[in-house]
């Protein structure tokens, strides 16, 4: 008898849970997902996330990755192998005909982020918990509060705990029924966080906030503002250094061809462009033949870009420029003609549109350093620019080629009398300058368009740097590039990009009037030559 009763009870319970499962939020969400309208999808995400269902996580992740499919009112998850799983039953099924991914827009994306955040707060991986904390910080979803409290209590990692606490602070500050003391504690945490996101939260309190809370928040916001103002000065200097290193890269090859050889090389920018296109070709080869090497693609492109641009440089020197030494106007016009030919040549071969050069994963993202945000690709370019500069300095100072180049530029006839084949040195030096421009192209492909016009944007700036720094002096080029870069970036926030550039140009014109030979003028015989 008792046995029968217990069986009956179990049965009732089972039916109970089954029917509950049939009508749970997870099941309610499925027809909404199948409807495939943005508003329904958004509502469905909330239901799924709150359902606690075993497959809830898979559904939201599939939606994020565009793998949540709809066919004939049924919702499926497609896995990486292309297998379909029915979301309602969890059974693998034959791929249904006409399956389409559920459409996603920014609103849905935000909801997915928030849902994933609240669902992964208790994940065993600290990295995932960190992302979850950030997602909850952005979404400020009060429903996540209980889980958040639990996560904070269990958290061992200091960094993650901080992120979790600021997420809680963000929620509490926006929660109408949170007490004043909770809100004040939240303001304290956000003040300590001290970044732009915290500032945004502190300066957007809801209208009904008590006066003491809003006063404290205003004070904290002011504190953050003045701290950020200090950092932004430093940040501008960093932007200046990074712009300066781009200018340095673009100009350093020119400082050899123009600076030491005296050739007004208008095709210099096209050497940069050729370097960038070499990078594009290398990446295309890697994409099709060895995708695993993609992270190293730039390193493979460097020597190739140097060779290709250098050889083209030597070719130009041998066929055109060597007949024009000592005739600056003709050189200027001839090299400009060459630059047009090269541009149109590249346009004919590769088409007029931009080519896509990918950024390796290690160069994406930003490093947060106090209040500074340093993007990895800019760090890489700054380091690279200085490395190229140092290498070129060493080549000119310590190799026999460098010695010959210096000898020829200082006194061509004397060097010739000493047995140096001056014309060969001319060609090699021009090749060196062009090759360095090619290397610059590899770096610039990371931040600019890879199009036939790439070089044009840099040619004026390059000449400005070399002339300003002092013709014939590598150090002058370095100081000139950095000065122009930093001055430009310090001016820009006040004058705007257009006016800033004009102001800088005028300043350079005035400077050249006072010191026609630039910052670091060469002294001695080379000047008279």
């Amino acid at each position, binding site marked *: 008898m008792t046995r029968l009763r217990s069986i009956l009870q179990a049965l009732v319970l089972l039916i109970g849970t089954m029917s509950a499962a049939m009508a749970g939020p997870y099941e309610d969400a499925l027809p909404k997902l199948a409807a495939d309208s943005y508003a329904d999808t958004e509502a469905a995400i909330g239901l799924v996330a709150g359902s606690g269902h075993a497959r809830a996580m898979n559904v939201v992740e599939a939606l994020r990755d*565009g793998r949540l499919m709809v066919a004939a009112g049924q919702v499926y998850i497609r896995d990486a192998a292309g297998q379909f799983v029915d979301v309602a039953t969890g059974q693998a099924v034959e791929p249904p005909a006409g399956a389409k991914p559920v*459409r*996603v*827009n*920014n*609103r849905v*994306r*935000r909801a997915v*982020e928030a849902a994933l955040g609240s669902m992964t707060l208790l994940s065993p991986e600290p990295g995932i918990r960190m992302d979850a904390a950030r997602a909850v910080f*952005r979404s400020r979803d009060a429903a996540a509060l209980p889980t958040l409290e639990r996560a904070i209590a269990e958290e061992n990692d200091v960094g993650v705990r901080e992120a979790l606490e600021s997420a809680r602070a963000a929620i509490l500050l926006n929660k109408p029924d949170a007490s004043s003391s909770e809100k004040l504690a939240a303001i304290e945490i956000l003040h300590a966080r001290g970044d*732009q996101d915290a*500032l*945004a*939260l*502190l*300066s*957007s309190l809801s209208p009904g906030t008590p006066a003491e809370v809003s006063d404290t928040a205003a004070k904290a916001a002011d504190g953050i503002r003045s701290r950020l103002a200090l950092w*932004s000065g430093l*940040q*501008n200097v960093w*932007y200046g250094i*990074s*712009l300066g290193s781009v200018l340095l890269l673009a100009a350093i090859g020119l400082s050899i061809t123009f600076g030491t050889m005296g050739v007004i090389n208008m095709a210099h920018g096209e050497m940069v462009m050729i370097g960038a296109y070499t990078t594009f070709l290398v990446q295309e080869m890697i994409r099709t033949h060895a995708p695993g090497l993609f992270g190293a693609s730039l390193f493979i492109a460097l020597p190739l870009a140097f060779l290709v641009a250098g050889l083209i440089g030597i070719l130009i020197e041998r066929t055109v420029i060597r007949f024009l030494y000592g005739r600056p106007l003709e050189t200027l*016009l*001839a090299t400009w*003609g060459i630059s*047009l*030919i090269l541009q*149109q040549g590249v*346009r004919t071969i590769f*088409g*007029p*549109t*931009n*080519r*896509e050069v990918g*950024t390796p994963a290690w160069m*994406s*993202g*930003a490093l947060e350093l106090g209040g500074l*945000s340093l*993007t990895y690709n*800019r760090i890489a370019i700054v380091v690279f620019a200085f490395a190229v500069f140092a290498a070129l300095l060493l080549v000119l100072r310590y190799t026999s080629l460098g010695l010959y180049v210096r000898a020829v530029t200082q006194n061509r006839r004397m060097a010739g009398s000493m047995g140096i084949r001056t014309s060969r040195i001319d060609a090699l030096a021009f090749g060196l300058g062009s090759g360095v421009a090619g290397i610059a192209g590899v770096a610039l492909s*990371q*931040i*600019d*368009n*890879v*199009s*036939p*016009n790439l070089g*044009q*944007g840099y040619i004026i700036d390059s000449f400005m740097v070399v002339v300003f720094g002092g013709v014939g002096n590598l150090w002058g080029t370095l100081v000139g590039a950095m000065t122009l870069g930093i001055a430009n*970036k310090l001016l*820009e*926030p006040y004058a*705007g*990009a*257009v006016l800033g*550039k004009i102001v800088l140009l005028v300043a350079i014109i005035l400077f050249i009037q006072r010191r026609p030979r630039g910052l670091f003028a060469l002294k001695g015989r080379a000047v008279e030559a």
Partner: protein
Amino acid sequence: MLKMTRRHMMALASAALVSGAVMGTAQAQETIKVGVLHSLSGTMAISETTLKDVMLMLIEEQNKKGGLLGKKLEAVVVDPASNWPLFAEKARELISQNKVSAVFGCWTSVSRKSVLPVFKELNSILFYPVQYEGEESERNVFYTGAAPNQQAIPAVDYLAKEEKVERWVLAGTDYVYPRTTNKILEAYLKSKGVKSEDIMINYTPFGHSDWQTIVADIKKFGSAGKKTAVVSTINGDANVPFYKELANQGVKATDIPVVAFSVGEEELAGIDTKPLVGHLAAWNYFQSVDTPDNKAFIEKWKAFTKNDKRVTNDPMEAHVIGFNMWVKAVEKAGSTDPDKVIDAIVGVEVPNLTGGVSKMLPNHHITKPVLIGEIKEDGQFETVSQTDALVPGDAWSKYLDGSKDLIADWKDLKCGNYNTVTKKCGA
């Protein structure tokens, strides 16, 4: 030396053209000539070369259908080389030497302004396929791209309604199109109750490549606790470094969306679009629009260019509409005489590629649907909003003081800038 080189190249090019034209006349006496005035070299080649190809395809196709008025069509292609004064010279060459019946061309507003006097003087027809700043209506020009009320204003409305945006960054390249568009948008936003301190306007030079400061400023502007969006009229090459910097500084579409008026499929083909997913663009056409007409067009385009990866974009559709309208108008008038075509074309209706029927209006603008799309990972757009009906293009903006009383009507009033208050033309 340089001048020599360029002159040589030009001479060569025009020699080739002239010989082509001569041969054309020798072989078939009766052809109707169509001028194609798009830059094939220089900075604008990146955008305009595609439009030249579209025109060639459309003309070839029309010839397969038996031509026009029983005659074959013949394309006369010239290269104004992204050089604004050269646009005027080449336009004159097309009209007076090659005797073309209509010209399809120009991209930048400054090139259009440069050819306007030529088309007026020689009384010919220009079809202009690019979205522009409005504030213009000429008897000899047909504007098949979007006017501001067919692109900029619906985009801002979408952001305000769907994304609840309250703070606006208007970022543009420093020339006439962004300046006028931003002036209209600023007046429009203020009329909707947006305060001056919630609007930030920023201009950058052509080809600007260092966006670090500006992106940081945008981030700062966006941290005032109100939802912020960027309305971008940044043009051409400057877009790639702008989007790259946005991605690097971690500005995501879910935080600060950017809606662009000059970024289409063609521009996105040169960028790694993964970090840009969710940023928006407003156009009247997307390649991803799922209609039978569009599908057929894309197939024809890929076959014509013999390249499976070629994308289609909005100005291409504008040329398709413009060309079909011109063909219909010529058939209706029974002649290619510009005066007759100008009279016949108003009211002509042709299907566009997004499933509607566009109509030429008396102000020489056309009706178009407005589509807002979000960038997808594959560089295409997902349409997230589309107007129910087609929107007629306004030549003169309702939101600017100088132009709100003006209308253009070439049918009854025969005037491009009729003042409805003073009842005078040209005020």
